[in-house]
């Protein structure tokens, strides 16, 4: 791990934190939850960035990052008495495969419009590549974040219980 890489990972984490804050406020969480989700997003996204840089495939890296977020989020949920998904969902938002999602639809439109067979085949390939990536990243996010909930169900469903 070179200092150069550490710097890149750090910058990535910072930007992910800003992105998570902004996307979190659309869903109107409480103040505490916003800070926690920014923190979790920074950790999760920089972990994913590091893994991808080390040569791990994107959906596997996403899965590991999401399970890290899930584990930390139930611990935080216990501390501030708030359901875990209130801040684990916003911290996943920077990892949502938005660009892959609309590229899927875009290549579908292009496929419809292209008249040459070779070009059309290229767009078909794009469609499947982007579509499958979207689907697998989404699944990796959700399974990863709910893995801790499946392992400790009692603990995670009673975090808002105060008595």
């Amino acid at each position, binding site marked *: 791990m070179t200092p150069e890489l550490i710097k890149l990972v750090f910058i990535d984490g910072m930007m992910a934190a800003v992105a998570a804050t902004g996307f979190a*406020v659309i869903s109107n969480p409480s103040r505490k939850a916003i800070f926690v989700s920014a923190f979790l997003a920074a950790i999760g996204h920089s972990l994913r960035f590091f893994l991808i840089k080390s040569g791990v495939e994107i959906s596997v890296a996403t899965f590991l990052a999401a399970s890290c977020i899930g584990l930390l989020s139930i611990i935080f949920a216990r501390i501030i008495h708030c359901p875990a998904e209130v801040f684990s969902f916003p911290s996943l938002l920077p990892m949502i495969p938005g660009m892959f999602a609309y590229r899927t639809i*875009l290549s579908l439109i292009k496929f419809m419009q292209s008249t040459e067979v070779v070009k059309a085949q290229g767009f078909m390939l794009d469609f499947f590549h982007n579509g499958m990536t979207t689907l697998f990243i989404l699944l990796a996010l959700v399974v990863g974040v709910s893995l801790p909930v499946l392992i400790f169900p009692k603990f995670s469903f009673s975090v808002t*219980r105060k008595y």
Partner: protein
Amino acid sequence: MNDNVEKKEPNIQEIADLLIKIASTLMSSGAHTMRIIQNVSRIAETFGYHMDLSVFQLSIMMTIINKKDSSKRLTLIKKTKPLLLNFTIVSDLSALSWETYDKKTPFEEIKKELHQIITTKRMSRWLVLLLVSCANASFCGLFGGDLIAIALVFAGTFAGFLLRQEMMKKHVNHLVVFTTSAFVASLIAGVGYVFKIGNTPEIALASSVLYLIPGVPLINSMLDIIEGHILTGIARLVNASSLIVCITIGLFASMLILGLEKL
């Protein structure tokens, strides 16, 4: 339960109304199906009722049965309001359900608290606008855009999100809202491509519409599917996908205007 509480016991209609109101509020605030069922059945349990619930995209069906006297039963169907994400409500209602379960809170008090939770004011829309613009700009940075691209995305998102807020206020069809906001945001972010400023105009254009991607509905849909609420999950997935199609159409329109072939 002591006699004092027994006397004030609310009747079945009142309880059913309260429960289904909580369920539909949770649904329109963006909770996933499992949480809705757990929260509402916890409160039903407190009043001595057994509850069955099915959640659909536009309506909720609920039957409650008194545990002591099974002839007392009631089924209700209620329309849900359109989705307006509000995680404060989700978190507060979850806390309310546990409080009711543990402290046996009286019926009237729950009603009062529910009213208070629903009427709590949202965060200022201008602050949200500013933060969303910053978020999308830093998103552009994550994808490797340079400073000019980041500035363009900030401007595009600001205009697009402002337009979205205004149109939502006037209750324009949400598919139209998403298409126009995506179009405006990507058109502004595409300025760099036309005037050849900055080194990464494609990244600016590509990340300018990402603030519209319905992330929470997508996560909720996958969560519903893996938890076994497949029908609700697929409904949410189709809903989110149709929004993504709208975003793409908006983006595609501005790509045509700017003369861009590939992204």
